[in-house]
């Protein structure tokens, strides 16, 4: 069998040009990397091909609006921008509460391209930025895996990360969000850190600090980096691998990196105030002490050193403990805050902060999310870890820690699967390439033995060639299946713009639901410039970006009390809600209703969160969740539904005049296609609202708030 396989291989390779070994190596490397980079760009373009080049979801619209402002008004205006069109009447200091990296990158690309007279619209730059950076990520992953093990692992890792669904989900064309560039910055920082640790040069330490600055400017997840790198240094100290190289690397990175990170106004003085950054400071101090101790040990006699060592350790430990306690108790160093604390104690958000708990991305992860987003990599991850543990080096310890911590965090929050995907690719690349190298070596050995002695020399290894061939074949097949899975997942699950919906009609044709943009453009063209729109916070960013009107609450969710007030307005009866709406100067109210089309992410399905958040503050304490359930404890909108629910403002706004509509054959009028029931309260009139606009498929409904009566009663 061996001779036949080898003859076929030689026939194929004889067609390729005769090159020297080095040149063939370089050609292969460039070929694989080029294909991986192009593939990662191409696989993210499904939604652009199916719909159009449009920005997806909710958060990207805010980023798009700020990028547009930056390109129109310049950096200084952008940095000092106070936005009075959001969070009316509070406003929002945008300059100081965003991570500007994404906007500055897009604006830079836009200006460079326009300088060379390639007049590309800023919207297209925003849509295609994430795929472009995913190509860069492929290259950086190659270099990182090459530093950790060898070139072969680098190539496999680059190929794996170009299509991994866990990363694609947040970096598809149109998903203009911080994570699109943050993963690139994170891997670049890690690459520079590994190089700094391996060489111990200030040059790489500085490059690492600069890459860290780019990371801080782009995503709030930089906290992960500034805790992982000190954790790595600590681990090296514990395992006795601390050397002058690591000392130089970490000192440079910490000092320069912290100073640079404080240049971002959103970060400000957090690196010296908050507990999330204290680990880095602590390890920095420990590094200095460790190196000093090593220095003193080399100069003193053993006995004198021991005495000095014990005294200093006790003194320093005592002083640090005292100062730490004092600072925490007096509040100068603030403890871990909400979002990051919920990573350490996952039940904290569920019990205390309903807004964090309500976001679906913040739910813990089930097994199917792991398999769906990573497929073959979940098998190869332990294999890569095994090979790293087999030959422990400073760099390997880093990737092991990164892998273990990110597996835990991905298990706590689905959204953090994004942070897990690169390390899964790197470790799987290491595992796959090590296995393949071992078994290909077997095959080469066997063929050499065959040529030389014509007799199997290793009696303890029967069918060596066949076994190796089948292992290589299985791995090749599973990599191919991985590719199929990834492209299928990208096409089916992660390429929907969610601002444009599509469905298959009965005869197989496609219906496009463009109701959201229809409603926002109606608002833009038919309402006064200073009109204030009230809606649930999900739609805030889209309304400001597309309709250009002032809103009360948006996706930033920085003010829980304000959101709670809106929740109270939605859950109360019309007259109580009217008081709240007049207090907040609301002119229009916007709701999303999916009952006619079967769109299940509408406001009635989100209503219980409005009740919970509305009832969570003082002024809303009369709103109790149980009032909105039936006596049996169910949430129903039909005749058995709770009367409080059937008369609250959200119900009335969603189902106004819906009782006369026939939605499905064989069902009575007013049949809600999402809840699958006939609604309870059908014929009612609105007292304080007036229907302003309902879109074609009743997805978005806009109501005008009536003015006070002319003759006040």
């Amino acid at each position: 069998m061996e001779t036949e396989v080898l003859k076929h291989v030689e026939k194929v390779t004889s067609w390729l040009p005769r090159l020297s070994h080095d040149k063939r190596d370089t050609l292969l490397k460039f070929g694989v990397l080029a294909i991986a980079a192009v593939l990662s760009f191409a696989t993210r373009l499904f939604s652009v091909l199916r719909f159009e080049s449009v920005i997806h979801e909710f958060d990207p619209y805010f980023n798009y609006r700020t990028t547009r402002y930056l390109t129109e008004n310049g950096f200084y205006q952008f940095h000092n921008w106070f936005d009075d069109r959001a969070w009316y009447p509070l406003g929002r200091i945008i300059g100081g509460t965003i991570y500007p990296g994404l906007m500055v990158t897009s604006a830079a690309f836009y200006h460079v391209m326009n300088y060379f007279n390639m007049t590309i619209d800023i919207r297209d730059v925003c849509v295609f930025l994430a795929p472009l950076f995913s190509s860069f990520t492929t290259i950086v992953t190659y270099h990182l895996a090459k530093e950790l093990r060898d070139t072969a692992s680098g190539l496999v890792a680059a190929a794996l990360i170009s299509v991994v669904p866990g990363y694609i989900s947040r970096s598809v064309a149109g998903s203009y969000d911080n994570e699109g560039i943050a993963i690139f910055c994170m891997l670049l920082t890690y690459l520079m850190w590994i190089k700094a640790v391996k060489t111990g040069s200030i040059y790489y330490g500085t490059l690492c600090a600069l890459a860290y600055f780019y990371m801080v400017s782009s995503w709030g997840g930089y906290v992960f980096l500034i805790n992982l790198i000190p954790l790595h240094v600590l681990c090296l100290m514990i395992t006795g691998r601390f050397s002058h190289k690591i000392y130089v690397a970490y000192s440079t990175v910490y000092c320069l990196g912290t100073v640079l990170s404080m240049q971002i106004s959103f970060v400000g003085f957090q690196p010296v105030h908050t507990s999330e950054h204290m680990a880095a400071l602590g390890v920095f101090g420990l590094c200095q002490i460790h190196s000093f101790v090593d220095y003193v040990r080399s100069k003193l006699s053993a006995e004198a050193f021991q005495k000095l060592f014990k005294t200093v350790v006790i003194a320093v430990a005592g002083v640090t403990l005292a100062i730490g306690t004092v600072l925490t108790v007096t509040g100068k160093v603030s403890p871990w805050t909400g979002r990051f604390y919920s990573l350490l104690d996952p039940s904290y958000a569920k019990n205390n902060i309903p807004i964090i708990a309500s976001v679906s991305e913040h739910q813990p992860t089930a097994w199917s999310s792991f398999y769906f987003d990573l497929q073959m990599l979940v098998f190869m991850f332990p294999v890569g870890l095994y090979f790293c543990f087999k030959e422990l080096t400073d760099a390997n310890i880093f990737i092991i820690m990164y892998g273990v911590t990110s597996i835990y965090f991905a298990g706590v929050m689905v959204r953090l699967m994004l942070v897990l995907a690169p390390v899964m690719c790197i470790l799987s690349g290491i595992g796959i390439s090590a296995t393949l190298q071992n078994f290909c070596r077997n095959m080469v050995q066997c063929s050499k033995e065959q040529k030389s002695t014509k007799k199997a020399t290793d009696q303890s290894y029967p069918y060596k060639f066949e076994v190796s061939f089948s292992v290589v074949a299985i791995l090749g097949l599973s990599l191919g299946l991985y590719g199929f899975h990834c492209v299928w997942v990208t096409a089916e699950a992660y390429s929907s713009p969610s601002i444009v919906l599509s469905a298959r009609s009965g005869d197989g044709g496609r219906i496009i639901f463009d109701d959201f943009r229809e409603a926002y453009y109606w608002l833009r063209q038919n309402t006064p410039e200073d009109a204030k729109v009230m809606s649930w916070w999900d739609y805030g960013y889209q309304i400001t970006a597309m309709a250009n009107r002032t809103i009360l609450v948006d996706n930033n969710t920085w003010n829980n009390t304000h959101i709670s007030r809106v929740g109270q307005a939605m859950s109360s009866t019309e007259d109580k809600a009217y008081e709240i709406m007049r207090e907040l100067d609301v002119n229009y109210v916007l709701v999303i209703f999916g009952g006619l089309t079967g769109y299940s992410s509408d406001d009635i399905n989100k209503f219980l969160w409005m009740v919970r958040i509305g009832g969570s503050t003082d002024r809303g304490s009369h709103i109790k969740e149980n009032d909105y359930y039936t006596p049996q404890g169910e949430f129903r909108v039909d005749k058995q539904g709770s009367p409080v629910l059937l008369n609250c403002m959200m119900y009335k706004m969603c189902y106004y005049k819906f009782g006369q509509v026939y939605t499905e054959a064989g069902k009575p009028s007013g049949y809600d296609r999402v809840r699958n029931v006939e609604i309870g309260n059908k014929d009612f009139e609105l007292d304080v609202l007036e229907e302003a606009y309902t879109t074609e498929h009743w997805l978005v409904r806009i109501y005008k708030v009536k003015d006070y009566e002319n003759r006040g009663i």
Partner: protein
Amino acid sequence: MEAIYRIPFHFLECPNLKLKRPSWIRQPPAMVVFAMVMLSYFLVCGGVIYDVIVEPPSIGSTVDEHGHSKPVAFMQYRVNGQYIMEGLAASFMFTLGGLGFIILDQSNKPGIEKRNRTMFLSVAFICIVVAFLMSRVFMRIKLPGYMSV
């Protein structure tokens, strides 16, 4: 200076503590740490954190046409939802696949008897193939539209 330092020690006496790091605390070998990491990987991939927060039942149940309640192993149509048993079964498959490759690597060492090597190789192949196929089957049960347009 010495006189001032000596004042407290006129009425305080230093305890004669002999504190030594206990000798049984040692850095664990690399493979022991790897085993602990594998255990935590098994637990996290099985969705243990999801189980603790959301508290799903161990097995779901439906009612069939005769009114008897039948158990349901996999929570269908939801990518991010699971029952406890299905999570543990799936992560068992993941760990089995990983262990298969590790055994495969161990079986490649020189100096193993023929009998042991064949055993290692057959166990490794069975682990890998079973793990791959079962995971695919589980996913198809969970999402009936998986891998079909």
